[in-house]
Every structure is written in C-alpha cells, then in structure tokens.
C-alpha cells in the first residue's frame, strides 16, 4: 500500500498543474492577507490584530477546498481519460487497494496545501499586523490549530464527494462542477430550508464545522457531534458508491 501511495504521490508531483496549485495557494493566501491589511489601514471597520488574525485562519479552507477538489476529481478520472487505467489495473494488485491509495493521496495533498497555506498565513499575520494588547499570543495557538482542523472538515467532505463522482462517472469536469456547485449553493439551500426538519439532514448544513466556533449557525439547535455524525454518514455513502463502482466495473475504454 505504501508503494501504491508513493506511486500516486509521484504522479501527482510530476504534473505541472500540481506545482501551479501550490503557487496559487501561496498567492491567494498572501493576497487575502494584503487585502485584510489594506482594509484595516483604511479603517473601514474591523479591528484586526495579530492575535485575532492568527486565531481564525478558517479563510484558508476555501482555497484549499477549491484546489483539492480538482485533484480529487481527476485522480481516478484522468487514468481513464489517459488510457493508463489499463496499465494500472492489469497488475497483481486488487482494485480496492489502488482506489484507497488514491483516496489517501488526495487527503494528504489537501493537508499539504493546508500546511503550506497556514505557514504563509501565520508568517504574514506576524509581519503585517501589530500585536493587540487584549490577549497574549500564546493563548491563540490552540484555537488557531483547532480552526484549521475544523475548516479541513469541509475540504475532506467535498473532496470525498468529488472523488466519488470522478470515479463513478470517469469525468473530472463533471466532478469538479458538481462539487463546486454544492460548495457554493449549499449554504443558500440550507438557509432557505432552515425552518424545515429536512435541513438538519442536508450535507450543506454541516459542511462548515467552523460555525460552532464562530457562532454563525445556518440552522439552529445543531451540535458538533450531530454534525459529525451526519457528515460521517454522507462520507461513508460516497465512499461505498465509489468503491463498488470502481471494483466491479468492466474496463472497456
């Protein structure tokens, strides 16, 4: 399994696009920080201190999500479109192992982007923003890391969805499109349906786990364990669909 992951990792980093994604991650994070700095110097509301910036790095989640979804959507679909799937599956390796190695690689890549983004974010937070006096820097780190972890939740769920769509339909564009559609319209749908019972069980309602920290809840009366349970069910469903279709499929392409 380790060798299979090594393979996926090698293929990933031999694509130019992957390096471009890392560059985009850095540029986007830096751009975002500069914008925040600009807003705070113009005194257009918002009092950003070094501590408050470090305390809430959840804005990283969006960029990481966008980029990870692209990789997740393509990692299985591209093997089909390149025709390399025939080379890959005629090996003495069971198909579920290959799919697992790909799934793990996608998540490792997401984490990697998150770490890169986080490092850039923290560096710029320290460089660009002055320390406030209300709280000590050391108190913030715990919260900061916790927020990163929570914002990775939506990355994980959305990329799992993209991974499943990509492996079932063998089309990365469909997977990217659907995932981003869900990501962007999901919150609106949840907000519209907020008064109905069904909103509680929608994926969109729970995707943003940082809502429990920021207090901006989409639907009332949600708890973290409940959200995690709902997300868990969705993820399991996505993976079951993905695995059964990939393992059973007759490759004719």
């Amino acid at each position, binding site marked *: 399994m380790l060798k299979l992951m090594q*393979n996926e990792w*090698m293929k990933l980093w031999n694509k130019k696009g992957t390096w471009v994604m890392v560059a985009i991650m850095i540029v986007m994070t830096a751009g975002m920080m500069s914008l925040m700095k600009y807003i705070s110097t113009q005194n257009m509301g918002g009092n950003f201190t070094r501590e408050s910036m470090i305390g809430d790095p959840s804005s990283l989640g969006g960029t990481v999500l966008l980029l990870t979804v692209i990789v997740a959507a393509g990692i299985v679909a591209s093997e089909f479109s390149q025709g390399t799937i025939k*080379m890959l599956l005629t090996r*003495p390796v069971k198909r579920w192992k290959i799919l697992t190695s790909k799934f793990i690689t996608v998540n490792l890549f997401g984490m990697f982007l998150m770490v890169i983004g986080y490092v850039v974010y923290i560096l710029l937070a320290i460089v660009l923003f002055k320390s406030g006096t209300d709280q000590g820097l050391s108190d913030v780190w715990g919260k900061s890391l916790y927020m990163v972890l929570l914002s990775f939740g939506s990355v994980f769920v959305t990329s799992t969805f993209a991974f499943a769509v990509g492996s079932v339909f063998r089309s990365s564009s469909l997977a990217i499109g659907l995932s981003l559609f869900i990501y962007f319209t999901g919150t609106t749908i949840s907000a519209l349906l907020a008064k109905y019972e069904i909103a509680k069980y929608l994926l969109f309602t729970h995707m943003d786990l940082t809502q429990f920290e920021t207090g901006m809840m989409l639907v009332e009366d949600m708890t973290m364990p409940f959200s995690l349970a709902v997300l868990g069910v969705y993820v399991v469903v996505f993976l079951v669909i993905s695995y059964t279709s990939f393992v059973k499929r*007759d490759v*004719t392409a």
Partner: protein
Amino acid sequence: MKPVVELKNLSKTIGGKKIINDLNLSLYPGTITGFLGPNGAGKTTTIRMMVGLMKQTGGDVVIVGVSLRDNFEEGLSKVGVIVENPEMYKFMSGYKNLVHFARMHKGVTKERIDEVVRQVGMQNRIHEKVGTYSLGMRQRLGLAQALLHRPRFLILDEPTNGLDPAGIREFRTYLRGIAEAEGVAVFVSSHMLSEIELMCDRIAVIQNGKLIDIREMSETKESFYYIEATPVERAKQLLVNEGFSVDDFKSGLLANVEQQQIPGIMRSFVAEGLEVFALQPHKKTLEDEFLEMTGGGQIAETYAK
C-alpha cells in the same frame, strides 16, 4: 507439457447477450499462440477477462495453476500485459513510468529495470518524458513494462501497431527469443494476418464468441496448384475424372494436387490437345484460410475501416 494458462469454459454475458461462449483454450510454455477473429468476435473481451480488466460471467482463467477467481493477485503476478497501444504517463519520464509499474510487482529491483531498458534498447532516451516519444518508442517502453517482473505468460493485443517494418521484425525476433529462452507462453491477438503467420507457432480462431479452430502452424498443408489451360471446361473435366478436387480461381483452376502428380497431368493435358499457359504451386495464405473459416463478409468490414 503442462499449460501455463488455461481458459476453462470462459463465458461473458453483457446485457443478456452472450459475448463469449464456453471458451476453452490452453497455452503452453515457449509457444507463441496467435489469436484471430473478425471484429466483434470477442477477442478483446477474452483478453480483458484474462488480465482482470473484465469479470467473467462463467468459467475461469487459470494461470500457472492459480485461478484468477480465487486468487487474483497471485495469478496475475505471472502475467505481462500489453493491451493495445501502451498508454503511459506522458508527463513522466520513461524511467519513472517503469519505476511506477515496478512498484506494483513484488521483487523488481533497480538492476532489473536497467536490464529491461537495455534489452529493449531504450537506454539513451529513457530519462526523457514519454510525451516526447515516438509511437515505436512507446511500444518498446510498453514491452519493457510487461517484462519487468519476468512473467511466465505474456499477452499482447495488437502489439505491432505503429511499428515500422524493421521494428516489427525486431519485435518478432525478440518475442521468439524470450519465448524460447525463458519458456514464456505468448498470446498475441492481431488483425495483421501476415504478421501472425510469421510470428506464431499456433493459431486460435474465434468467431461469435466461440473458438472455431486451433491449429499448429507447422501442420503440413494440403498442396494446391494453379492451372491455366484452355479450354477450361475440358481441363476441369479431365482433372475431375482423375479424382482431383478442383475449384475455379481467377481465370484458371485451383486443384488439390501433389507435386509428383504434376508431370502426369501435364502429359495428359498435352495428349488431349489442351493449351497450357501456367502450372504453378499455389500457397494458400493464412488470410485465405481465415476468410474461408470465418466467411469473408465480416472481415471485409474490418479492412474497410
């Protein structure tokens, strides 16, 4: 001789239609077996079931005594595959592609990779990206990846596509070499009948999902002579009277005659006052036989493509 690969009552049904129907076939070490059939006969389906790209509906594929149904990984570890054009990862170098596939087999060392690269003569360009390779080089790389793990059984689908004549010849010699030196069973599917004829020891012909013929290439063929003489009817009558089987062929006759009988026929023709224009041995090519076996129509469509 114990077969390396056995297909046992292999069947495949897709959408209620039997694509492959109770196929039985054994492949032996050191033997190159050709696999022929018109388009849509089920060649590719059969091959895909043998390499794990498709699941069989019935029957089994047994490779060196291991059933693919029971133990896929063990069974397939003895197989080297080139399915149609070998598609590689274009964004990586040839070498990295080989490393990639080597990792998926047990016990392929770095030395083995280098050895295979030398064997297929790719050492000068192996570190360049596959995207820059010509089709012929990709074919070589495809062969290299199939040989990495020293397979006991090599399966090739349309292997000479895109090779130039020199390349095809080299490929043939090379294939013959490993089949004999390492006792590898080779199974080649191709549309290029002349190619199969030169390459294979045995051919298996499939049509409509059924195996319709297996034969050794070395089997002594019946000898045919092409005879052109006027008047044709008289000549034909004469031959039939002598007990030969005769067919019309082009502007003359095709008769099933042995060489030593030729002078006798010649004499009788002259005695009868027939004018003889030609009398020459006629070699039935594999193509002729193939068309006879499968009925010409379907293969004609193949060529039209």
